[in-house]
């Protein structure tokens, strides 16, 4: 959902549930998308990526879905574990020569309860 200022969207789930984290991007020229996980006091950690010529990509316990029509990205985490608790960011890379400039979303706080 929308968030303002420091109020990040939050998602609370029970251990073992599936989690879905959503993200909207604004640059229709973006051709590469990444999900990062950031734990408290650490840098963003790469989870999974997807290129714009794909709609879906699966990893270990994670799936990313890309809907270019509505500029929406989602991250699905299967059988969520307490260790999955973190802030999750989507990021996109603009097309053309913008090779280095990742644009990050504001993030979603995922809390997994044992």
């Amino acid at each position, binding site marked *: 959902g929308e968030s303002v200022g420091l109020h990040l969207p939050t998602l609370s789930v029970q251990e073992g549930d599936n989690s879905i984290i959503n993200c909207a991007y604004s640059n229709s020229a973006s051709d590469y998308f990444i999900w990062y996980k950031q734990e408290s006091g650490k840098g963003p950690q790469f989870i999974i990526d997807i290129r714009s010529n794909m709609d879906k990509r699966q990893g270990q316990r994670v799936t990313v879905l890309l809907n270019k029509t509505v500029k929406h990205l989602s991250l699905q985490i299967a059988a969520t574990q307490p260790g999955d608790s973190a802030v999750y960011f989507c990021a996109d890379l603009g097309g053309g020569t913008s090779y*280095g400039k*990742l644009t990050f979303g504001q993030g979603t706080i995922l809390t997994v309860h044992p």
Partner: protein
Amino acid sequence: GAGVSQTPSNKVTEKGKYVELRCDPISGHTALYWYRQSLGQGPEFLIYFQGTGAADDSGLPNDRFFAVRPEGSVSTLKIQRTERGDSAVYLCASSLRGGPQETQYFGPGTRLLVL
């Protein structure tokens, strides 16, 4: 090394002082990126190096910020005349060649506090 490293991990300074933040990229990575992350926000791009040269410095907020990478490996982000608004986590990332659709791997960041 195994990953991107950054030093110091924490830096406290006084308003008006000069600071340097260091980044060691993953060995063999030619591209290096600096981002700044304010509390409760996602990282914001500052500058990107391809080898020794700055390929894109469009994110540097003003001329108090400067970054170098003289030998194409280690990079230093320099902030002159620090202001309280510069307080943030400064993140460094690297990627293999800096080409399109390439994953950037982040370091742990330097937490800068300007009093």
